Every structure is written in structure tokens, then in C-alpha cells.
């Protein structure tokens, strides 16, 4: 069979310009409509935004490799700003690191977190329920993961203030070195050094995920350097994205009062609401892969060494996958298969912890808040690859 190839549609629009970052969906719709694979003049990379192509790139980890880095530069040729993480690795290096992480974060270790994770959510939502208005981001979404997650990893109290700025660096570096990137890296060395310090064995407590990862060094599965990098991966991947996940879920639910009422009647649906909100407003919107060998995707020839910008958030709104109401929140929708946590080899290993945090916060809020609505426009955050809000004022009726 002859594969008929054509050139990618060339797009002049820049996904990283301010307007497209603050309100990504109109651009993403145009990108999906432009064809299976587009070439972005602004970044010199190819772009995929349809569910089918995104799924193919994520699952074919041999053709679309991660060791070139998740940013626009190929870190194999041009070393990155830090030693590569598990996200920036391919098999077989990825394989041992992934095994070590999966052995540590699994259903039984995550189940045990429900108990310690609940009281802080109770306390926070009890305080908020006494107010008529609050900011769902600064008063809740940004507070909760920082209350529970660093403890679960087992890092010391000293230096926790570096976690958010560090996460901001890590994720913004998956985009171009624009002014947003430069702002994030303003005190980069300091943040990176502080986080790296907290990944060392002697600075971790004896029971958290950090210590469990280091135990795999004693088992001979991973090296000390890999253990450090895996703890670092937890700290960088486990805070910002969960904050954005909680904030985005509330941003959606504040717009859908009927869904809130239904969730109040049946709080067991909370986890489905979170899942559907993750599909609709995916915190992790996009990252790059590197083409390992010449290939064809969606009829377009992709040369070895090219960068592909993978739009998870657009795939999660592709009407060909989700139907004509793909842009709507539908509590009845089975959102299974969304790629908010990635798909395949690199699918988020911390996903069960993130889901637990989001579900607990929502359930506690549902218990105490009869109705929630926007109190003015939310302020989207200016970020290269994450989608979220820096402020989300809400008005509530206490239960």
C-alpha cells in the first residue's frame, strides 16, 4: 500500500501568544479544523490537536520520544536546564524508574492517604462556608495540596515555599523561552537548589513516598541519582497540576448550578464531576515530543528530529471523540479515555493521589455549600502549558 502524504497546513498563529494562552479554546478549535497535523511557523514545530492523532503520539513512544525533552528544544543536542526527569526519558531508563514509582504509588498506598488528607479539607471548607464570598483559587485550590501533599512525600517544612515557583519553572519550560518563561526563571537557581535539597534521603522523613522511593535504591532497582530525580518529579508534578485541577473543577461547577445541586444530592458523583471537569478544562494543556525516525502521521510526513506539540486539552474537546457537546460540562458523560493525565507509557503515575485530593475537597465543599456561583470574572493565569486561574471569585450559600 502506498501511503499518500501531503504537506502539513502551515499556521501563522502562535499558540503561545498572550491572547491564545488566556483563552485557548477558539485557537484550538481552529487548529483542529486545520487538519490532522499542522506546522506552526511561530515555533517551528508540528502540532496535533485531534484526539486520534494525540492518542497515536502518546502511545507510540518509540516514534515520538520523550528523551528529546518536553520543551521546544531537543535536549539531546542542547542540554536542558536540569538533569532529565522520568518524563524526559525513554525505555529502558524510563522502565526502571517507572517500576520504582509504581511500586510506591499504588492503590493501597494511596488508599491510606484518605485519612490524613480529609481533616485539612474539612478545616478549610468549614472556614470558607462561613463566608459569603471567597476566592476559590487563593483561598482553597492553592492552599489544600500544599497542606497535604508535601507531607505525603515527607519533605521538611523548610523550603516548601519554593515548591510553587519551582513547579512554575518546570511547566513553563515546556513552552518557548518567552517573557513568561523568563519571569518564571527569575530566581530559578535558588528554587531548583532548594527543591533538590529536599529530595535527598537525609532530608526526607522515614514514612513518606520519598523514603519509599529511596528504599528501591537499597533493593538495587534504581540508582541514588534516579531516586533523587523521582522525588523531584513528585514534587514538581504533584503540586501545580493538582492546584489547577481543583481550581478548574470549581470554575466549571460555578457555571453549572444544576450540576452542583445534583452533586449535593449524590456526593458519590463527585469523582465523576472531577473527571469530566479535567476533560473540559485540562490543567496540563500541551507539551512536546520529538520525532525519532521519519514517519507519517495523519497523512503528513514528519522528519526525524522534528518537534511535535501535543495538545492534550484540545484532544479532550475533540467533537469527533466526545460529540457535538464536547465543549459542555455533562455530568452524565463517561469521560473515560480523556488524556488529561496523558496516556500510555508516561501516563501520570500520581494520578490516583491527584484524584483523591480533588475528590476530597469537592466532597467537603458539597457538604457545606448549598450553592456556588461566579462573583465576577475569573482571571486566567498566564502560563505556557498549564490552564488555570490565578483568581476565581465565588459567592456561596452555606448549607
Amino acid at each position: 500500500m502506498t501511503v499518500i502524504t501531503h504537506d502539513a497546513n502551515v499556521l501563522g498563529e502562535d499558540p503561545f501568544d498572550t491572547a491564545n494562552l488566556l483563552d485557548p479554546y477558539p485557537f484550538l478549535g481552529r487548529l483542529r479544523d486545520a487538519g490532522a497535523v499542522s506546522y506552526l511557523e511561530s515555533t517551528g514545530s508540528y502540532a496535533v490537536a485531534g484526539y486520534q492523532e494525540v492518542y497515536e503520539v502518546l502511545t507510540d513512544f518509540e516514534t515520538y520520544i520523550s528523551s528529546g525533552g518536553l520543551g521546544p528544544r531537543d535536549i539531546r543536542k542542547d542540554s536542558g536546564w536540569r538533569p532529565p526527569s522520568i518524563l524526559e526519558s525513554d525505555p529502558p531508563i524510563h522502565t526502571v524508574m517507572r517500576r520504582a514509582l509504581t511500586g510506591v504509588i499504588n492503590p493501597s498506598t494511596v488508599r491510606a492517604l484518605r485519612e490524613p488528607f480529609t481533616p485539612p479539607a474539612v478545616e478549610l471548607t468549614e472556614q470558607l462556608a462561613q463566608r459569603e464570598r471567597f476566592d476559590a483559587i487563593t483561598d482553597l485550590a492553592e492552599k489544600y495540596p500544599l497542606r497535604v501533599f508535601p507531607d505525603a512525600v515527607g519533605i521538611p517544612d523548610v523550603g516548601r515555599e519554593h515548591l510553587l515557583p519551582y513547579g512554575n519553572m518546570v511547566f513553563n519550560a515546556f513552552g518557548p523561552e518567552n517573557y513568561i518563561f523568563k519571569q518564571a526563571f527569575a530566581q530559578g537557581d535558588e528554587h531548583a537548589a532548594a527543591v533538590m535539597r529536599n529530595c535527598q534521603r537525609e532530608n526526607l522523613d522515614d514514612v513518606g513516598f520519598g523514603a519509599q522511593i529511596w528504599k528501591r535504591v537499597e533493593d538495587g532497582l534504581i540508582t541514588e541519582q534516579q531516586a533523587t530525580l523521582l522525588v523531584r518529579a513528585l514534587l514538581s508534578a504533584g503540586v501545580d497540576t493538582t492546584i489547577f485541577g481543583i481550581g478548574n473543577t470549581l470554575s466549571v461547577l460555578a457555571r453549572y448550578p444544576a450540576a452542583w445541586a445534583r452533586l449535593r444530592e449524590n456526593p458519590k458523583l463527585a469523582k465523576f464531576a472531577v473527571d469530566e471537569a479535567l476533560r473540559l478544562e485540562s490543567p496540563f494543556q500541551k507539551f512536546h515530543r520529538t520525532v525519532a525516525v521519519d514517519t507519517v502521521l495523519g497523512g503528513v510526513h514528519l522528519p526525524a528530529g522534528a518537534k511535535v506539540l501535543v495538545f492534550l486539552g484540545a484532544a479532550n474537546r475533540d467533537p469527533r471523540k466526545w460529540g457535538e457537546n464536547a465543549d459542555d460540562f455533562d455530568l452524565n458523560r463517561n469521560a473515560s479515555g480523556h488524556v488529561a493525565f496523558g496516556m500510555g507509557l508516561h501516563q501520570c503515575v500520581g494520578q490516583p493521589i491527584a484524584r483523591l485530593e480533588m475528590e476530597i475537597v469537592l466532597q467537603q465543599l458539597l457538604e457545606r455549600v448549598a450553592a456556588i456561583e461566579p462573583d465576577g470574572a475569573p482571571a486566567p493565569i498566564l502560563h505556557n502549558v498549564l490552564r488555570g486561574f490565578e483568581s476565581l471569585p465565588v459567592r456561596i450559600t452555606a448549607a
Partner: protein
Amino acid sequence: MSASAGATIDAVVDQVDRVADQVVSLVLRRADGQPFQPWQPGAHIDVHVGDGLVRQYSLCSSPDELDHLRIGVLHVPDSRGGSKAVHALLAGTPLTISEPRNNFPMRDSRRYLFLAGGIGITPLIPMLEAAEAAGKEWTLVYGGRSRNTMAFAQQLEDRYGPDRIRIIAEDEAGRLDLDQILGMPRAHMLVYACGPGGLLGAVEERCMGWPPGALHTERFVASTLGAAAANAPFEVELARTGTTVTVPNDKTILEAVEEVGVRVLSSCRGGLCGTCETQIISGEPEHRDAVLSQEDRDAGEVMLVCVSRAAAGCPRLVLDL
């Protein structure tokens, strides 16, 4: 051990061959001379071995030849008598069996790695044939104590060649080097593994570094080696709604439950992320995931419904759904 489910068939043992040390192969035909119902690679049959004992044996013949079925049975001296009874069968003996059923179905993909421990080779044989016929990229790694204990090893090597078939006999080459075999995940490669629990446990551990859904296993229970662990379709009672769902062999619990409109949150649907973890109210699961701890497995209080099933002899699971 387990109640038989569904209709039984009067069959006749047509041929008995000793195919390895302690392993016999039986060719079975229907007593009425009719062909068997069509089946897919991975299928097994129930064999009524006498004294109310029913054993499940995987089919190792070709699905293209429905005039007969072939099974391979390892003799386990200290088991409860199933394999001993089968080994005593002679050509011409009548035998009650079931039609083929499949709880180890082969999903379509671009590449396959087949991994057999001992008599676990049997369900894989039709899979090799299917993969070959479809022009897929595939290899078999087949481990056993020594060549003379490894049924069908020589035939497979003769048929497909040593590039496709890697025979690893312990007395020549040591045990299977799973770190080497599974150390390099391949894109779109599915792993089909069958053998004793110890081997599959080690395979599951290594597949934690593989994409979710890559690994598919069928356990051969230690007490009845040569017999597949789980058997018939089973029922799942959903405690919250009072609904009961039958889970056929070619569907997962998750799929069967979703079909009746009950919601279960899931993500990887491959036994790796744990999102679909479900409380078991009663019944005994056969865990096929790659992430539950041994303590969880022993406690039997939760299961991942995207891959795990009811254990052999457990016709009904009651789940907190």
C-alpha cells in the same frame, strides 16, 4: 472445584499422545461427529474428569479445525486427582466436556510478546498461529525446567524457527531472565503471559514499567497445573442498585457494568492506575492487575474491575457499585 456452567457435550477421546515428560495431549471429537462451535485463541473447555471434578484446560489446536479440539495436560502427582484422571484416559473413552469459552481473549495490536511458563504454553499456541496469519510482529519466550518437560517446544521451533521461538530450558540456560525479556517496552506491543502464579507475579512486577493495558495474563493454578484458574462466565451483583450483571468471558467487569448504565470511574483500563478500584462485599476475585499489593490480594477486599475477574469456583461477586 467448580460447578460446570452451560451445556455439556458428549465427546470422545480420539487420540492420546505423550508430548513431554508428564504431559499428555488429548485430541477430542464430538460423539455425534459434528464440528465444535467456532472459538478464538485463548479459549478453554471444561473437562468433567469424574467424581464431580471439573477442570478447565486451554485449547492448543487450531481454531480453523473445528472437527477436533486438542488440550495438553500436565500430571501433578499431589493434586486432587484431576490431572491423574486425565492421564489415565485412553483413546476411545467417552468424555463430557463443554463448548470452548474464552476468558483470555487476544486483543488486536501491532506487536505481540508471548511468554509461557511450562504448560502455560497451551493457550498461546493458537495465538501464535493467529499472529502469524495476520502478519504481526511477534515472538514467543518459552521457559521450562528442561527440554523434555516442555510440551510442543520442538514442533513450535520447527514451524516458526528460532528467531520467533525462544526456548529457555532451566537446565541449559537458567531461569527466564525477565529483566532482560521485559526490560525494553515496545510501543503497541501486547504481552500475553501464561504459567504458574510465581512467574506471573514476577512478570506483573516488571510490567509496571510498561504502558497500562500491555499485559494480559492467565494463571494456571498450582494445584491443578495445566488447568486455567478462572472459568465460566460469572455474575456480579451491584449492591447499591440491586442489579445483577452476567460477565461473559470476552468482556471485563467494567465493560459489563457500564453496559447496564452503572458508572465506574476508570482511566487506564489496563490494571495499572487503580482508578477503578472497587470494594468487594462478597465473593473471591482473581486479581489480574499489576499494582495491588500482596496484602490487598490476600485480604480480597478490593479489586480492579478493568481487568480482574471472579476466581475459579466463585460464580458470583457482590461489589459496592
